């Protein structure tokens, strides 16, 4: 394990917004390259990055569109950099092609999506959580990846660092699913000393070029990586490939590659069950939520407890992979699971699947543009407790 570069980390106590904190998290994690096509409400992340990198070494390129941005950043990764892009709904849709490319080529990188109301141009300056299924299934073909969801500017810092670390560990594109409210909200953000910030280094080739195969599964089913220009054969394609990385388009090759892309994530299910829970032991109703909605849900939980209801809290910090085992264990012990989301009911589909009919699952949908009224979540809790 390495640590952040002390010359680049803004150690101290700040009053900053989530977008700025996300940028500082990326810098602390070692990102020195970003390509983007700035879009509200994510613009401040790369605006700050562009201002910061001349002093710490690094590049921000404003590309002609999101397709270009989302593939340029991957070129930089294969050249040795840690790199990311930042977007919102409409841009995220355009990036889907290359998110699949990153999954197929096992390119470690981070896609930040500061979610706004949609579909289409929707509500550029107002929050939603409508891209959660897109984060999991948006690109064509079948792949598995990781999505983290922060609920405060502080977490926009710390979880961005984590997003980069997970990207390196599993060699996947990690989706950092913010929303306009968290991105534009200003709160205290504590940035620790560089030596307290752990940074996962790239899994770099441990063999000499003559023995190295670019896509040979290594530890934890993840291949080691060599960069262009280091003397290794670096052949990277979106086509189904063999261990050398060369196109090999047949069912056997597909069967060897694709299930491994899933298994490298699924075998780490426990490590990727990243949640914050409270009062689950004797709860009749558990409110399951993520992102900004979890804060409003907390208010509702406190209101319900004041009325004497036994309510637990389960906040998903990592939404994908979904904490399946946890929900399967929890469902038989409670009367109901309540899930508020700033969409018309997306992650609740997964919640319902994992609950498997063992308890009621109550969706509290919201089309976005603002956050839930705590009273609406409270009403669902009361319905679940009956």
């Amino acid at each position, binding site marked *: 394990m390495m640590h952040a570069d002390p010359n680049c980390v803004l150690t101290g*106590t700040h*009053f900053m917004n989530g977008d700025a904190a996300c940028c500082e998290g990326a810098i602390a994690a070692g990102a020195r390259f970003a390509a983007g096509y700035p879009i*509200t*409400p994510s613009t401040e992340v790369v605006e700050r990055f562009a201002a910061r990198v001349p002093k710490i070494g690094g590049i921000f390129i404003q590309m002609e569109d999101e397709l270009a941005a989302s593939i340029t950043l991957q070129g930089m990764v294969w050249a040795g950099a840690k790199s990311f892009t930042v977007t919102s709904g409409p841009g995220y849709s355009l990036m889907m092609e290359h998110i699949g490319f990153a999954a197929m080529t096992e390119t470690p990188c981070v896609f930040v999506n500061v979610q706004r109301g949609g579909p289409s141009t929707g509500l550029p*300056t*107002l929050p939603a959580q409508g891209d959660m299924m897109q984060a999991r299934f948006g690109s064509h073909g079948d792949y598995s990846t990781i999505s983290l969801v922060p609920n405060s500017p502080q977490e926009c810092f710390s979880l961005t660092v984590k997003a980069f670390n997970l990207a390196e560990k599993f060699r996947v594109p990690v989706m950092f699913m913010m929303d*306009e*409210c968290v991105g*534009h*909200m*200003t*709160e*205290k953000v504590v940035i620790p000393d560089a030596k307290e910030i752990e940074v996962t280094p790239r899994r770099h080739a441990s063999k000499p070029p003559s023995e190295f195969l670019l896509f040979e599964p290594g530890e934890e089913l993840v291949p080691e990586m060599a960069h262009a220009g280091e003397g290794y054969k670096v052949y990277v394609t979106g086509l189904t490939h063999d261990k050398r990385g060369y196109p090999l388009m047949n069912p056997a090759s597909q069967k060897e590659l694709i299930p491994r892309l899933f298994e490298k994530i699924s075998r780490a299910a426990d490590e990727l069950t990243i949640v914050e829970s409270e009062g689950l032991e004797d709860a009749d109703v558990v409110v399951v939520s993520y992102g*900004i909605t979890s*804060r*409003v849900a*907390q*208010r509702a939980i406190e209101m319900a407890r004041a009325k004497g209801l036994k309510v637990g809290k389960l906040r998903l910090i990592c939404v994908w992979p979904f904490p399946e085992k946890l929900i399967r264990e929890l469902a038989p012990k409670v009367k109901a699971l309540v899930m508020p989301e700033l969409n018309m009911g997306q992650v609740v589909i997964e919640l319902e699947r994992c609950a498997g009919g063992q308890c009621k699952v109550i969706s509290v949908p919201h089309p976005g543009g*603002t*956050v839930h009224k*705590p009273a609406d979540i409270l009403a669902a809790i009361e319905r679940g407790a009956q």
Partner: protein
Amino acid sequence: MLKEIRIAGFGGQGVILSAHILGRAVSIHEGGFATMTQNYGPEARGGAASAALVISDQPVLFPYVSNPDILVVMSQEAFTRYTPELKEGGVLIVEEDLVRMENVPQHIKVYSIPATRFAEELGKKMVLNVVMVGFFCAITEAVSYDACRKAVIDSVPEKFQKLNLDAFENGYGFGKNLLAKGPSKEEDTEPVSVLESAS
């Protein structure tokens, strides 16, 4: 203790910075919690600016402000738009030279200051927001003098520190004088006009 605050005016008055200073004072220098949001919608174009601040001794869960306890208005538009949202018994702080007060709701407390004039006397009109921060600090006591002063210092470039601290002190002193000679704060059944005190 949870207080919801809205500060509104027009672009260029430093509305957002004033909320930033108060939020910083509470969350960094007082060890409390503060969440600031601002309007980014189309209404934030064409001159209007507004920031909302929730301060508390507990973590802030709900980030938005719909019915503030304290409203600071620095433009006529802000006064017209936001005054009806003020809570009953709430505090309205007004830039008196920029706002003509009409239809002031009953059961609120009103405190006025010619903040722009104070700023102009200091030679920089742009520090009116910091005059307002000082006045806010004196009138509401929602944030301590020391924390506010420190937040002013670390929110402005070093070469403008003295100017901004003077602005802060002027606003604070005016507020304290107003409280000393004005009607008691508990007397919230009548709107309190203090317009004459500044002329």
